[in-house]
């Protein structure tokens, strides 16, 4: 699905180079699109000057402020200035805190990335373990039950699942902390929330892949040669299911990031999502803008790396494109 972009006229070197070049072009285009959108939206959001100045400011104060911010310049010039500043890593100052918005955002980035990476890894491992167990059970009923549970889990948005976890484990049972990032125990609920959401997403795919390979010659041959079921599933069927899994994981990373941004509010997690939502509440648009741009850039770079991994792992990408 992801491999369908066609920048066919770029005939550079081998197919792998061409594939990777097209991905880099797309990455640059995407970052450019995000920045342009942020610029347009910032202009549509209304005049920031009135928000920045005290109520009793005179028209002269407003004009002076507009001149300092370059808002009296023609639009294309503002756009060029904005892009140039963004290239230097400057996305304006926070209206409420005065500090450069990007600095405030970078400060919060580790907490978010940490949560994302840990949940992603645990979710992926859980999905694989459960799918392998289902395949080894050799029971369609067990597999169907797993799929029903997965679909049910998928119908609960992460923020909602997080609240229900707090209700059960913090309010009713009182065994786990509900808020903040103070101890290892405070990781359990948010990680569990994201990880189970992922399991739900990938279980269906892994099941389909296993069902397809179950009937194929390489599986039958391996079984005929006396390999154990476990060995066949883990050494033969699983590797074949990993490539589609990477593709779908790459596509769903966006859903995961979106869920995470909202989830941080539920657990009062001191990450980027919490910062963005606070920015919205305090009408601090530069913070919202910088937060979204930084997450989008990190996200796009991760996708680029996944694509490159894909090109290295899958020989068909080298030949087909």
């Amino acid at each position, binding site marked *: 699905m992801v491999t369908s972009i066609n920048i066919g006229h770029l005939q550079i070197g081998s197919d792998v180079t061409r594939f990777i070049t097209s991905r880099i072009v*797309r990455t640059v285009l995407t970052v450019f699109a995000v920045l342009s959108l942020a610029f347009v*939206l910032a202009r549509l959001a209304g005049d920031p000057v009135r928000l920045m100045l005290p109520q009793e400011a005179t028209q002269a104060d407003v004009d002076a402020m507009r001149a300092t911010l370059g808002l009296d310049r023609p639009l294309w010039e503002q756009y060029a200035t904005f892009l140039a500043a963004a290239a230097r890593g400057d996305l304006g100052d926070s209206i409420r805190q005065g500090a450069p918005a990007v600095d405030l955002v970078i400060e919060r980035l580790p907490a978010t990335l940490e949560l994302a990476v840990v949940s992603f890894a645990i979710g992926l491992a859980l999905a694989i373990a459960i799918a392998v167990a289902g395949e080894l059970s050799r029971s369609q009923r067990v597999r169907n039950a797993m799929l029903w549970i997965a679909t049910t889990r998928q119908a609960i948005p992460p*923020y*909602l699942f997080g609240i229900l976890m707090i209700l059960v484990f913090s*309010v009713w049972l009182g065994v786990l902390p509900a808020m903040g990032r103070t101890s290892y125990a405070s990781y359990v609920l948010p990680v569990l929330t994201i990880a189970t959401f992922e399991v739900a997403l990938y279980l269906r795919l892994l099941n389909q892949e296993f069902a397809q390979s179950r009937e194929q010659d390489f599986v039958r041959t391996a079984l005929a040669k006396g390999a154990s079921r476990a060995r066949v599933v883990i050494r033969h069927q699983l590797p074949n299911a990993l490539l589609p899994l990477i593709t779908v994981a790459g596509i769903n990373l*966006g859903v995961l990031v979106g869920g995470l941004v909202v989830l941080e509010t539920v657990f009062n997690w001191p990450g980027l999502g919490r910062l963005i939502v606070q920015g919205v509440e305090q009408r601090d*648009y530069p913070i919202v803008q910088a937060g979204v741009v930084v997450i989008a850039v990190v996200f796009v770079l991760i996708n680029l790396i996944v694509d490159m991994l894909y090109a290295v792992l899958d020989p068909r990408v080298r030949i087909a494109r």
Partner: protein
Amino acid sequence: MTAIAMPRGAAARAREMGSALRRSAPSTHVALAFLTIVLVLAVVVPVLPGIDPYGQDLGASMRAPFSDGAHLLGTDQLGRDVLSRLALATRMSLLIAVGAVAVSAVIGLLVGLVAGYRGGRLDAFLMAVGDVQLAIPVVLLLIVMVAALGSSPMLLIVLLGLTNWVAYGRVVRAMVMSLREREFVTAAVSAGASATWVVRHHLLRNVLPQVMILSAFQIGVVITIESSLSFIGLGIQPPTPSLGLMINEGQRHLQTDPSLTILPALAVFLLIAGTQFLSQGLERTRAR
């Protein structure tokens, strides 16, 4: 004659529907049960007498469900009737989701038809636009948009529609590309049929069922996003009730009255699960 024929026709139709239902996948049955509850809540409850989502009564705040005859599902922190608010919020979520899905289905259908049928550079361009759009997490995109532009229900429908068309575009394009090569299309083309004729008589008819299945699924996706936005204060603005905001307000009273959270949570779950099971059931019935 007609007086006799009519009930017979109706009975036959009812039998037909009954047998269609028996043949359908189990997920369809679950979906229908869930969606019936949701539809009663969204369509029937708001027109019942005594439904008032805005009236505050601080003397009767935080009543538990089923404890007060006047407020079947209890009252919130301002003494507003929870059932009334739940019904209106569910209706609003459903309206926004259906509207947004309609917008994205139309955009995706047009893009997919043009890209798949024309091919070439236009196709490459449209798909590249889709790729770029998919490369940015939708929730983030919506957060900056709504923070800048505001969030009236109409605007939410448009923004949610604009950010969710790519799935349709890709599915329709892939189907059109394979249909284009089939005999009934090449025959029509060689007989002199225009592109619009082929699209209207052959392509649309074959693509629409899949678009419907995808739409059922997308309603769940859009409700997930919309309720998340409302939850962080970026969706429907108070005092208009919305499920996300009710959950946000309920979370503050999780210790004392969890029903304020659980009831809207249940509505969100029934909406999303209902549409997703429906989409799965339709897919399976179609595959048979």
